[in-house]
């Protein structure tokens, strides 16, 4: 929730926050926990690019991206994106753009652990 404080200020009228949590099932199969691996230096650069693109496209005041790594249990917060703007449309659009682009470009890998094995998400067609 520190992410929310970091984007709020007297000139902001709307803050949109996306919180991605660890779901207990994927395609109907029970997930025990997740593991996130990252190429940290490159991930930060890619996140920086997303933020720069968001600031260029929308009148955004502040944008925070926070992503956990390592082992996460069901229900834990994996990612938080908080965007503040004077008006809510910019906050909504920039927040959604940020999570969508993060999922496409930022080098972070999620492994789902099941009772009978594990799968790197999206690895295979």
């Amino acid at each position, binding site marked *: 929730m520190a992410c929310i404080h970091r984007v709020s200020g007297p000139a902001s009228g709307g803050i949109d926050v996306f919180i*991605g949590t660890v779901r207990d099932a994927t395609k109907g199969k029970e997930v025990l926990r997740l593991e*996130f*691996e*990252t*190429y940290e*230096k*490159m*991930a930060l*650069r890619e996140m920086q690019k997303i933020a720069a693109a968001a600031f260029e496209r929308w009148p955004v005041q502040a944008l925070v991206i926070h*992503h956990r790594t390592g082992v996460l249990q069901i229900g834990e917060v*994996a*990612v938080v994106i908080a965007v503040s703007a004077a008006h809510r449309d910019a906050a909504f659009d920039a927040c959604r753009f940020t*999570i969508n682009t*993060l*999922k*496409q*470009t*930022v*080098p*972070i*890998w*999620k*492994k789902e652990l099941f009772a009978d094995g594990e799968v*790197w*998400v*999206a*690895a*295979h*067609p």
Partner: protein
Amino acid sequence: MIELSNMQIKIQTFGIAREICGDAQISMLVPESTTAGQLKQLLTEQYPRLGALASFLLAVNEEYAEPHIQLQANDEIAVIPPVSGG
């Protein structure tokens, strides 16, 4: 004159690529002036399971690399299998 000029490059691997390559960092001897596209081909020949992935990209110095980019011996090179953050 015939000259053979190879270079040793280090390649970081992540996620399923790390499991396929068997190590978080592998070394390869490649001709100088090898491009990112050529390295991708060499990697797929040496580790055929990389070719079975939905896709994989190379990063050079922490940026996604276009296939025509020429590699240098001290470049920071990484295999980027399909990302799945968020």
